């Protein structure tokens, strides 16, 4: 059962006992040889100084108050790490979504045990006061939202009038719940709501889904399965634009949340909900007629994507997703249009090789970003981009402002072109020097979610090419849309080793050593992109070797740029020109 599952991360190693640390230290070298050497030199230097002035030893030894030395780069990374609460939650939303897909339908036996009369006299819900209710869409999430009193009352009524059957403790619930906290005049309890089976956004959800609640008042924890009447409670919460409500921010650890959420009286006001269209951002100057015009439109193409849904077709799975950026309810839109993304044997490692901008913040607890409208589709550090010249905002409030200030999420083409030029021309050392102390830029790309993030920005595509080498051909058509064909070199640092080949992924890596088996086919020399002229969205991208053979590709199988457009029929994934 999900509730008994424990969540950990590598932070659990903190405060390990000395034996565990000793054992760990025997197995793993924690730093590189160069760093080790550097530390030895530092130790020697200090030792030499202390030998000269012995009195310093005692001061050092007993004071315990060493000066803090700010270091810009790491400060940046720490700021990024601070985003993990947000990101954890959003990542959770992705899983929530995934779990609700038909593919993940959890077949439950409906062999309920003794019927329980939750709504009847003398039951748990009897005499409950529903006026104060708070909600979090994700477990272990700092932000807990107020539910308006009228919705809270209606939800309570639905819960009370539903028929409930108590379920065995070992019932499997493999999705994250939406949690309600009910104050109940100082006798609080928690209800974790699970909708399993048909996705709520589908027509047949009411008949084809199972609804469970886990009741927990801190003393008793019981799982119940509700009928269709009870599902009204889920619907009420699910369709609520929860993020436009006031919220509290709970400090970690997220224990005893039943009581803890009511210890907080200060609520924060959410910025009023707004929705957008691309018209709100002026992209007319980026008219797709020259390099700057093309790059600018590509960088900002996400302004055309308010609702996105589709299927990721990977070699071993199909993942459905929907994302409503304009409504930004945090839940999934009922009226999706489809952008199906077909993956031709994309593996995350492969994309990593191409998608990774050179200077990444990989490592040291810096889990970031890929944010759009204050949301993260995925979080990791490896595609992070630095650059004072290329403005961005590292702090959470700034990120959240993206949602409410579309103009603040506007990329300037000239700055990016300059950045790209540096990235292509500077040596690795010089590039690192130049950008080491720069502010971190939160990109809209990711390293292993090419599928999920791809519609949002062409930033990753533009990062991996040398823009100065770009050649443009007009007059192309793809999936009925007018396109430009862009051809550009992939700088050396991204060329190899790439394992894109006609063979399956596993053939690209040596089973024993894990090294790549180099195949001439796998050496990417340049790329071709079919870019939608209206929106700047990369509809399809090919990676080609020096013989002009496409060794890897990614693209959409269906696409439409407004809700009224009919989805285009499936297109076979073949070379379009």
């Amino acid at each position, binding site marked *: 059962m999900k509730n008994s599952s424990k969540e950990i991360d590598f932070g659990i190693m903190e405060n390990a006992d000395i034996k565990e640390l000793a054992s760990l230290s025997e197995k793993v070298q924690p730093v590189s040889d160069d760093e080790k050497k550097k530390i030895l030199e530092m130790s020697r230097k200090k030792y030499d100084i202390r030998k000269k002035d012995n009195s310093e030893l005692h001061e050092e030894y007993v004071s315990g108050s060493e000066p803090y030395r700010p270091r810009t780069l790491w400060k940046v990374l720490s700021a990024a790490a601070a985003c993990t609460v947000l990101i954890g939650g959003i990542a959770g939303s992705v899983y929530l979504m995934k779990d609700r897909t038909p593919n993940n339908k959890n077949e439950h036996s409906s062999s309920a045990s003794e019927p329980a009369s939750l709504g009847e006299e003398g039951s748990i819900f009897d005499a409950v006061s529903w006026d104060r209710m708070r909600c979090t869409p994700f477990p272990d999430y700092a932000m807990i939202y107020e539910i308006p009193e009228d919705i809270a009352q209606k939800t309570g009524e639905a819960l009370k009038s539903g028929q409930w059957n108590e379920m065995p403790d070992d019932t499997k619930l493999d999705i994250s719940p939406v949690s309600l906290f009910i104050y109940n005049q100082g006798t609080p309890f928690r209800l974790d709501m699970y909708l399993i089976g048909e996705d709520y956004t589908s027509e047949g959800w009411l008949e084809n889904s199972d609804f469970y609640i886990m009741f927990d008042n801190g003393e008793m924890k019981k799982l119940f399965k509700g009928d269709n009447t009870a599902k009204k409670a889920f619907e009420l919460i699910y369709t609520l634009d929860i993020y436009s409500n006031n919220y509290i921010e709970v400090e970690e650890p997220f224990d005893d949340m039943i009581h803890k959420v009511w210890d907080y009286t200060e609520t924060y006001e959410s910025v009023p909900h707004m929705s957008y269209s691309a018209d709100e951002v002026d992209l007319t100057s980026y008219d797709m007629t020259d390099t700057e015009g093309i790059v600018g439109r590509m960088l900002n193409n996400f302004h055309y994507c308010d609702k996105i849904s589709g299927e990721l077709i990977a070699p071993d799975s199909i993942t459905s997703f929907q994302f409503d950026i304009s409504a930004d309810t945090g839940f999934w839109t009922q009226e999706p249009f489809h952008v199906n993304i077909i993956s031709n044997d994309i593996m995350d490692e492969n994309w990593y090789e191409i998608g990774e901008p050179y200077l990444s913040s990989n490592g040291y607890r810096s*889990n970031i970003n890929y944010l759009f409208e204050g949301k993260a589709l995925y979080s990791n550090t490896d595609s992070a981009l630095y650059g004072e010249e290329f403005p961005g905002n590292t702090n959470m409030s700034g990120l959240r402002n993206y949602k409410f200030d579309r103009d603040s999420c506007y990329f300037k083409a000239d700055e990016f072109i300059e950045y790209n030029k540096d990235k292509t021309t500077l040596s690795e050392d010089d590039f690192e020097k130049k950008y080491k102390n720069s502010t971190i830029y939160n990109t809209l790309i990711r390293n292993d979610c090419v599928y999920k993030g791809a519609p949002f920005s062409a930033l990753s595509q533009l990062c991996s090419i040398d823009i100065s080498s770009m050649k443009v051909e007009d007059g192309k058509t793809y999936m009925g849309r007018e396109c430009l064909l862009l051809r550009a070199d992939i700088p050396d640092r991204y060329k190899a080793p790439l394992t894109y080949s006609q063979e399956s992924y596993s053939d690209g890596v040596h089973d024993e050593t894990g090294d790549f088996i180099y195949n001439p086919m796998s050496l990417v020399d340049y790329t071709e992109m079919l870019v939608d002229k209206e929106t700047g969205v990369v509809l399809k991208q090919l990676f080609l070797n020096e013989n002009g053979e496409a060794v890897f590709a990614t693209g959409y199988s269906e696409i439409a740029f407004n809700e009224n457009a009919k989805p285009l029929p499936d297109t076979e994934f073949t070379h379009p020109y």
Partner: protein
Amino acid sequence: MTDKEYHILFNKSPREAQDTLFEEYFSYVYTIVFNKLRSCAVKEDIEECVSDVFADVFEYFDNISEGESNIKEFISTVAIRKAINMFHSLSSRNGRTFSLEESGADSITDSENIADNAERADLRRTLLRLVEELGEPDSSIIIQKYYYGMKSNEIAKNVSLAPAAVRVRCSRAIKKLKDKLIDVNITLKEAEL
């Protein structure tokens, strides 16, 4: 290594003695310091602290006559104290406050309740066991990547593989680890990866 052995070596060549001691205990010290400072310090602070520990240890052995004491134990004590000191100074700068009881230098555990500690210890053991089950070099790669936060190219040097191969192995290993953890009803949080 005993302090007697250290002194014999030291009399022959002080530099060689220090090199040997450093080589033998570097990972140990770094691991202790890192473990304490991981949550609040940057990498350079940790390096600073580790170098302080060794400077202290070198200095200490200059000033005492040889004996048969356990160097490892002594070094761990210095490392823990140093780490706690730095932890407090970094934390106070960040606006965190601590009770005096928490500065007990001989224990790097916080004053959490016993049951909680026991549960965490159990989870920790499970995690380490399952990481170990991945086999080498994957277990080392995972620890270096997700615990020490090292970059793929740094790890690559340590495990003598190409950076790309490290990424491949790492990606596969973390998937394997997650599956193993799920089997024992533990979820590895994605956000921390």
